[in-house]
């Protein structure tokens, strides 16, 4: 069981509108940071801040050690060898790094080793209909610019991935399958094994959007069998401005970079550049050093709680919010209702209130001190498919209490009468 960790998070003690206590249910967008993370960064900055991997002086040494130590901590969280973790500015950058690397390979970069990444007319890229824009647009645009075809795995009427036509959609011409580990709208955890199995049959690369999984459930990328995976610091209790790409070493070493600068190179002349091995080749310019240190501290914090405990805690929160929301008149719960067993869904609930716009729902919640998210949550196609322009999402993290979950359901229950909408 998860210990009560609320006191670790200074921000949660603040009050909001009219002095009400804060009920923070927007962790799916960005999480709050525990003291362990804030202090790791502050200690680094007031003690060891220096240029990483570039100097022979003491601060540079200490900074390098902290930076690489953090990489090892993050690697441990996701079950990966340390040299397979590339620091990025976030998950969005990590996914784009792969997509733009494939584009550059297609344009001739990377030599023979990059052959396996080249795509073009006649090839297919597969995504899903419920992807976050961060894992849709890079592939859509890559397809548009290389002449490859974009196809997608559809969702059913509840917004859940329909894998019944998987073998058709992931056709033999498929080169990349990019999909999320967990939907940031329905909370449903993807059947990764099924998609990976089919992708392997056709020799396609798999790219996993692990933004919503790494912070909330136990994850081992090597065990999942995907080829690349992206996640962000700020959703896993760490800083903004930092994230990571994981990839199999031999793929990372072969993928051409698409952002160029200092530190990532072996030899530079005016005419030519040779790159270092991964992960360094993808880390040009000054890295988010203190942020990486913070993300490492976040990984350690989560591991000290135990990801199994985190998942179990959030499953309980999910249950209260989802069952509570689904039981209300005129409230539609996005995703499966009651279906999945604990652990198969993240600690979140997105709802549409009949006759009341999401923004208005959010306003009622906000008035009660409840911070939830309204809108399309960067998943416009999914909302469109469900006949909605937006929804109201409450999302939990380690610090979310059952009382928070109940407060959400109670506030939700009051919405329709406030707006004079009754069935």
């Amino acid at each position: 069981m998860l210990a009560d960790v609320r006191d670790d998070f200074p921000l949660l003690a603040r009050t909001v509108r009219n002095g009400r206590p804060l009920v923070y249910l927007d962790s799916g967008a960005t999480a709050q940071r525990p003291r362990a993370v804030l202090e790791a960064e502050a200690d680094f900055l007031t003690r060891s801040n220096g240029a990483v991997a570039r100097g022979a002086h003491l601060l540079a040494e200490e900074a390098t050690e902290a930076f690489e130590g953090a990489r090892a901590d993050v690697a441990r969280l996701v079950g990966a060898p340390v040299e397979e973790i590339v620091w990025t500015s976030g998950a969005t950058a990590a996914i784009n790094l792969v997509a733009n690397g494939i584009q550059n390979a297609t344009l001739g970069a990377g030599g023979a080793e990059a052959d396996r990444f080249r795509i073009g007319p006649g090839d297919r890229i597969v995504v899903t209909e419920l992807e976050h824009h961060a894992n849709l647009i890079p592939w859509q645009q890559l397809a548009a610019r290389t002449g490859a075809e974009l196809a997608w795995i559809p969702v059913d009427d509840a917004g859940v991935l329909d894998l019944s036509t998987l073998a058709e959609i992931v056709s033999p011409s498929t080169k990349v399958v990019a999909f999320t580990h967990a939907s940031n709208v329905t909370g449903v955890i993807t059947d990764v094994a099924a998609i990976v199995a089919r992708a392997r049959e056709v020799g396609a690369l798999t790219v996993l959007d692990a933004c919503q999984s790494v912070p909330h459930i136990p994850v081992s990328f090597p065990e999942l069998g995907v080829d690349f995976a992206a996640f962000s610091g700020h959703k896993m209790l760490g800083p903004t401005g930092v994230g990571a790409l994981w990839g199999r070493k031999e793929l990372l070493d072969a993928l051409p970079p698409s952002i160029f600068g200092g530190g990532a190179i072996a030899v530079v002349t005016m005419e030519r550049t040779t790159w270092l091995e991964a992960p360094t080749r993808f880390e040009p310019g000054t890295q988010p050093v203190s942020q990486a240190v913070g993300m490492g501290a976040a990984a350690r914090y989560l591991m000290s709680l135990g990801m199994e405990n985190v998942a179990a805690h959030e499953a309980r929160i999910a249950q209260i919010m989802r069952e509570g929301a689904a039981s209300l008149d005129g409230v539609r719960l996005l995703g499966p209702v009651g279906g999945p067993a604990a652990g198969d869904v993240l600690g979140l609930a997105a709802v549409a209130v009949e006759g009341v716009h999401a923004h208005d729902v959010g306003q009622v919640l906000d008035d009660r001190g409840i911070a939830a998210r309204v809108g399309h949550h960067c998943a416009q196609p999914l909302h469109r498919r469900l006949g909605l322009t937006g929804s109201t999402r409450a999302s939990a993290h380690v610090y979310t209490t059952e009382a928070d979950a109940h407060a959400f359901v109670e506030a939700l229950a009051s919405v329709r009468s406030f707006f004079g909408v009754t069935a």
Partner: protein
Amino acid sequence: MSSLEQMYQQVIMDHARAAHGRGLVQVDLPAHGESHQVNTTCGDEVTLRVGLEGDTIASLSWEGQGCSISQASISVLAELLDGESLETADETYEAFRALMQAKGEPLDDDREDMLGDATAFVGVGKYPARIKCALLGWVALKDALIQARGASSSATEGDKA
């Protein structure tokens, strides 16, 4: 009155439920304009169409879905400005923008008079994230009027040629 009730005043609720000017009307006037605006926070969209006769807004209609604030705001706008002069429209637009920037404080009497029902949106000014909702239709109006004026001046030029 709680902030929430100050925001969702009865007049706003009424406008949201039965909105004026909803349903795009065909405009055959040479000086016409149409604007499509999206509120990127929530994806709400509005299409607003105007037609001018001289300096008068002779037709003003719109279509769209959105929150009660955005819908009510467009409805009030339509009620206030359909049939009014361009000058009144510009002044009202400025007054409404000022109301949104006023952080919940009322404006001076002159502008309050000009805004009529639109003064009910005073509470929105306390919620920066909702100002966009209230302005959605007004931004569309501004844009549509620019186009209509452009059309009218090029029509005039065309006359000259």
